[in-house]
């Protein structure tokens, strides 16, 4: 296991390095932060001065050298836009995204696994057809639409929930609910499919022959075996969410890392772009590692 973690860490470090190099040069090729930061009628003098202050006049390779040297000291540089350390800006936002992702994925996993297992038990039954319909709608409805409709219905019409923002537990309900819909639909389908094949296997027949009841068959015997593909999908979905739920963050005014990343790309706030990429890439690496370890725990046949 330790060897596996070491190998993965080395591979991820290389990938991260490649990513930093790529983003560093590509972002600098596509636009001048001075022209974006300063008003459109700024004088040549102001532009020059701005570039000088932010070290944008140095040759690109020198800029890169400085950046990597600073990075080794864990200094991600200043945000041009916000005039404070880029890493502070990113970590502040990342905490919001992490909470959003954890809460949503926990809810999704529990409900999708329970409902998916029950649906698989009587294939073609009313419950199965109903959950299939819900999951299909969930997996295909665009989230910006769901978000706006939810605000109009629950905040404007019924007045039950705040439209957006942060501050109380109620502020989390709509964003989590909107984020919930798509991964729920997807994971439910995977659980169902995986359970259907597990339920037809020989050990289930043996268990039934021994007189084991339905509930232990589903939740003890088959679920553990059916979980492997499910965990892969959960990992995928969680990774997507750690990258930031841009649409949900934008509509609900949630100060997460997805919106921050998009804004910093549009503004060419290079240090924030790079810091947010490094932070989310690290988070995704750690999550993938946890998933690999979960495989080994669930299936004793898997050994690293």
């Amino acid at each position, binding site marked *: 296991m330790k060897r596996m973690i070491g190998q993965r860490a080395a591979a991820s470090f290389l990938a991260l390095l490649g990513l930093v190099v790529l983003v560093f040069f590509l972002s600098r090729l*596509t*636009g*001048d932060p001075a*022209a*974006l*930061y*300063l*008003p*459109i*009628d*700024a*004088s*040549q*003098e*102001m532009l020059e*001065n*701005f570039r*000088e*202050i932010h070290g944008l006049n140095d040759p690109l390779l020198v800029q890169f050298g400085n950046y990597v040297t600073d990075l080794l000291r864990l200094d991600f540089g200043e945000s041009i*836009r*916000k*005039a*404070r350390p880029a890493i502070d*800006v990113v970590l*502040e*936002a990342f905490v919001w995204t992490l909470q959003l992702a954890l809460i949503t994925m926990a809810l999704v996993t529990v409900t999708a696994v329970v409902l998916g297992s029950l649906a698989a038990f009587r294939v073609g039954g009313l419950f199965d057809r109903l959950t299939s319909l819900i999951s299909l709608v969930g997996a295909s409805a665009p989230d910006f639409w769901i978000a*706006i409709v939810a*605000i*109009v219905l629950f*905040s*404007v019409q019924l*007045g039950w929930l*705040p*439209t*957006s*923002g*942060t*501050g*109380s*537990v*109620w*502020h989390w309900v709509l964003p989590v609910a909107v984020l919930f819909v798509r991964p729920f639909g997807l994971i439910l389908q995977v659980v169902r499919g995986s359970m259907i094949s597990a339920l037809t296997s020989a050990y289930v027949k043996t268990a039934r022959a021994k007189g084991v009841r339905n509930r232990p068959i589903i939740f003890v015997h088959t679920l553990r075996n059916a979980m492997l593909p499910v965990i892969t999908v959960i990992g995928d979905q969680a990774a997507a969410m750690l990258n930031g739920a841009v649409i949900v963050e*934008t*509509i*609900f*005014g949630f*100060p997460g890392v997805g*919106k*921050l990343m998009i*804004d910093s790309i*549009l503004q*060419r706030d290079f240090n924030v772009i790079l810091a947010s990429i490094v932070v989310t890439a690290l988070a995704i690496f750690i999550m993938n590692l946890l998933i690999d370890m979960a495989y080994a725990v669930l299936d004793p046949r898997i050994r690293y």
Partner: protein
Amino acid sequence: MKPNHLLIGALLASASFGPAIAQENKNVTVVLAEETDLVEPCMATRSNIGRVVLQNISETLTELDVRDGGGGIKPRLAESWEQVDDNTWRFHLRRGVTFSDGSSFDAEDVKHSFARAMSDQISCEIARYYSGMDITPAIVDEHTIDFTAEPAQPIMPLLMSLLTIVPSETPVEFTREPIGTGPYTLAEWNPGQNIRLERRDDYWGDTPEVSGATYLFRQDPAVRAAMVETDEADIAPSVSAIEADDPELDHSYPNSETLYLRLDHAMAPLDDRRVRLAINHAIDREAFVGSLLPEGTELATAIVPPTTQGWNAELTPPAYDPEKARALLEEAAAEGVPVDREITLVGRTGNYPNVTEVMETLHFMLSDVGFNVDLQMYEVAEFENLYSKPYPENRNPQLVAAMHDNARGDAVFSMYFKYHSEGRQSGIADARVDELIAQATAATGEERAKLWSELFGYLHDDVVADALLFHMVGFARVNERLDWEPTIATNSQLQLADIAFE
């Protein structure tokens, strides 16, 4: 108590949100489209910062009056001013004014504020209004200061409406704790979430009605509109025309933006006046108003809004006349002008609501009279490369659709950049234009207005410099408990002291 009871208890305890802000108290909540990422006073001419900081936290020596007909300059931290000689203006400062940190306001603070704004250690946005001139402040006494400019600046009192005053102790770096003389002070700032201002007890002027303000940031216009409807916010200074469907709550206002097509006079066929005129006659401006652009949008005959000194009321927008456009093109073609050369029509994504549809319609109208037009939409950074000099080599002749914002009351902030042969976004090089700009910039009063007026006429009728399109309108949604109307200044500032309660 069992854990799940605890959870329910916590949920109920936190059940208070939005609506509780209304009724009794005199706090207002303002929901803005763009996050206020800095609260630095020397950046207050940027709208997302100005709406929080300008005249609320930080004040200026003078103030542009937009309410009563517009155009006038009101005293703020300066009680009066006079011109000492051609180059020097003297400002008499208000006495008994204190900053929110308790220190008193004097000429030293004004001098430091100017030096700080112009410093090359930091990139202050307000410095752009003082570029191309050499201004030296000189303290006469504690409450009097002279500003000497080279070349002479007849609009010095107007220029002082842009200089935010900070205490002389303020370091030359961006501050996160702005200290000002304004009626409010920064009480709380949670980056990305909210900013809170509180009223000062020791403000020099009249005590405003609003006791505090919370600023929230929501990018989606539908959400901003919904927040005012549900009493979660009191003012949404910009909502889209589609959302603005409630005449009780929504107010339209000229947002000081002017939309135009900049024509590339350096390249054929756009170097031919007939071709430029054909572009102007090919566009059915009226057709956009009330369809793709909101009702109330005005047809433009200058790049500055009608509230600007020297506005030329005699100019009329070119009539929609496709036949005439075709005839002009034929005439030019007959003389060897390459009218069938491909022209790039450049637009900016997300520039204003319906920008894509507006650009596609323009593309259709121009193609309809015989132009060979290719429409290209760019995001802001790439657009900027095409809009500002140096223009790319090997380009096609370009029509760049851009918006320009000037609510400052004087055309000097626009004309050099947009029309002078050295201007960074100028598409033309015309000696008469350069001369008129120089003359108007140096003139005062009636003479200045007359010269600007002449320049507007010359550009519009003689040169046919560009295709001026629209003065845009914005919509603000305002909670019924407030007595407040947006103005042309709402794009750049939102003075809490102007807000009253019903």
